[in-house]
């Protein structure tokens, strides 16, 4: 029974369809694993009753039916950023304490429609702003991986840190994440799992608490590439309630996993070779290049000249959008309202509520966003950043026009770092997203695949970036890389 949560989605799907296991058995095993993993602080709202009810419904639907949806009966974790009907949805913020939505996000609804089971809500950085899960109002999630016998607690990454920790520790079969600057791919890389951010517009944003609307995308975090394909399939699709959702057919991603990448062209961008990049990351990247070449791909050295400016542009655009999106947290319609003093008016109510409800990083970003949008600075900062964004996207368009099918880069500039390590300088923390943020700015699909370990035995990931809307092709390249890398290591259980 204890081994059931270690199953991959594809394995569990086949076993469920054959009747070798029931969803209720699988769900109970996951709930037990979650109960035993409090030290990871991955699940922050537990929904065992809902999970059991959904599992029973899934078992009734399965009954040995081969045509049951792939996710029917599969226990998943849902990031706290997704609004889930009747279940606390706090975006890891005190300002949404007590908020229980009356509606269901489109992505979670689609998963439930396919028969998936929700085990609970997963830890994250507050409003998805962070790279270490340390800005969460629930306290940080903890990476199940350690540096050998060293007991130092490591970050699972962020913002989808709870999702990453839960999947890596086999508390669930897969989890939803969201990615605004790297929040799926960086934690996936830090925990040795797979995470894909699809093309902007693939997944509906409706019902997902907004951070930066022009960058936010949901995606799956899973134990391998096949599972990512299966879960992404269920999450994608057009939604009239999100005006930026693409009305395009969703191909069968899993069917596209042939592992055959002969004749594909893989670009290696020279600008991703950063000063001071650890030798291990450099070596992993070269190894990835060799693996794809051995699999029959052509390797092309390419240039994305505006890469250096992606992070500074992001730290104008994302806070600007956040300052606007988070204006809704005013203590009137939902969430926290500060206790007011005699004579306080509505302005004091706003100011005290937001001071009490938001954490430091969120306040910092809302205020930076306010500043770059304020009269006199709008052109110098916001408009300039949007022009640079145009140039960053153009860089990618040019290499794709030259025939590049996918781009290989490191996923992160380091392996998982210790919790509490990089707090003094906010910019230092922002550098975690240096390889991932370009993909959000250009709206492209990107996937992190575990490909090796560092000298302490911690997982390291490689990132593949694909052409817009070609997640199927991207997943197939990732599948080839996964097979060549053969990464099967698991964290030793200490929790």
């Amino acid at each position: 029974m204890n081994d059931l949560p270690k199953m991959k989605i594809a394995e569990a799907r086949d076993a469920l369809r054959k009747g070798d296991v029931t969803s209720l058995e699988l769900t109970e095993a996951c709930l037990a694993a979650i109960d035993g993993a409090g030290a990871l602080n991955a699940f922050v709202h537990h929904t065992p009753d809902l999970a059991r009810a959904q599992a029973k419904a899934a078992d009734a639907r399965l009954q040995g039916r081969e045509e049951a949806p792939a996710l029917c009966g599969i226990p998943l974790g849902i990031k706290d950023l997704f609004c889930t009907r009747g279940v606390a949805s706090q975006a890891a913020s005190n300002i949404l304490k007590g908020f229980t939505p009356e509606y269901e996000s489109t992505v979670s609804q689609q998963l439930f429609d396919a028969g998936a089971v929700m085990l609970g809500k997963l830890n994250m950085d507050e409003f998805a702003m962070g790279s270490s899960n340390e800005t969460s109002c629930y306290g940080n999630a903890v990476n199940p991986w350690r540096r050998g016998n060293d007991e130092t607690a490591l970050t699972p990454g962020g913002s989808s840190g709870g999702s990453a920790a839960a999947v890596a520790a086999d508390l669930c079969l897969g989890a939803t994440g969201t990615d605004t600057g790297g929040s799926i791919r960086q934690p996936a890389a830090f925990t040795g799992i797979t995470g894909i951010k699809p093309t902007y517009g693939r997944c509906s944003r409706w019902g997902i608490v907004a951070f930066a609307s022009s960058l936010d995308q949901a995606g799956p975090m899973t134990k391998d590439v096949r599972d990512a394909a299966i879960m992404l399939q269920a999450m994608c699709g057009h939604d009239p309630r999100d005006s930026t959702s693409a009305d395009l057919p969703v191909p069968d991603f899993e069917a596209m996993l042939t592992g055959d990448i002969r004749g594909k062209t893989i670009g290696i961008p020279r600008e991703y070779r950063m000063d001071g990049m650890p030798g291990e990351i450099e070596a992993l990247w070269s190894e990835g290049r060799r693996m794809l070449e051995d699999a029959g791909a052509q390797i092309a050295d390419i240039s994305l000249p505006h890469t250096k400016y992606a992070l500074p542009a992001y730290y104008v655009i994302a806070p600007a959008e956040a300052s606007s999106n988070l204006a809704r947290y005013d203590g009137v319609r939902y969430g926290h309202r500060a206790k007011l003093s005699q004579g306080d008016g509505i302005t004091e109510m706003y100011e005290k509520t937001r001071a009490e409800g938001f954490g430091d990083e969120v306040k910092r970003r809302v205020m930076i966003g306010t500043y770059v949008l304020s009269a006199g600075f709008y052109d110098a900062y916001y408009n300039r950043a949007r022009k640079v964004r145009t140039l960053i996207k153009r860089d990618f368009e040019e290499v794709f026009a030259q025939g590049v099918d996918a781009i290989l880069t490191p996923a992160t500039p380091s392996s998982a770092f210790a919790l509490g390590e990089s707090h003094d300088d906010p910019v230092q923390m922002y550098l975690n997203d240096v390889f991932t943020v370009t993909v959000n700015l250009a709206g492209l699909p990107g996937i992190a695949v575990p490909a090796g370990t560092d000298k302490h035995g911690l997982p390291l990931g490689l990132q593949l970036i694909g052409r817009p809307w070609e997640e199927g092709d991207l997943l197939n390249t990732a599948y080839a890389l996964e097979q060549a890398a053969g990464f099967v290591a698991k964290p030793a259980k200490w929790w």
Partner: protein
Amino acid sequence: MSIDEGTAARVAKLARIQVDPAQLPALAQDFNTILGFIEQLNEVDVEGVEPMVSVTPMRLKRRKDGVTDGNMQDKVLSNAPDAREGFFAVPKVVE
């Protein structure tokens, strides 16, 4: 460009976030660190470049201008910190 405490206080006011005056120097320092990082954008030649509006070229879909939902006052108010007689209640706004 350097942000002083006065500017930090003005930004906090615009963002409707109360900041203890004792925190202003540290806040101004954070702003300067982040804005210093952002200043790199000035190195880029953006002459003649259009600011990005939408990352994927798409025409917004139109729909019939009709009511699609409603009649859910209870649900709308269910999460309000203070709801009375079918309305959101707030401190007095107009004298």
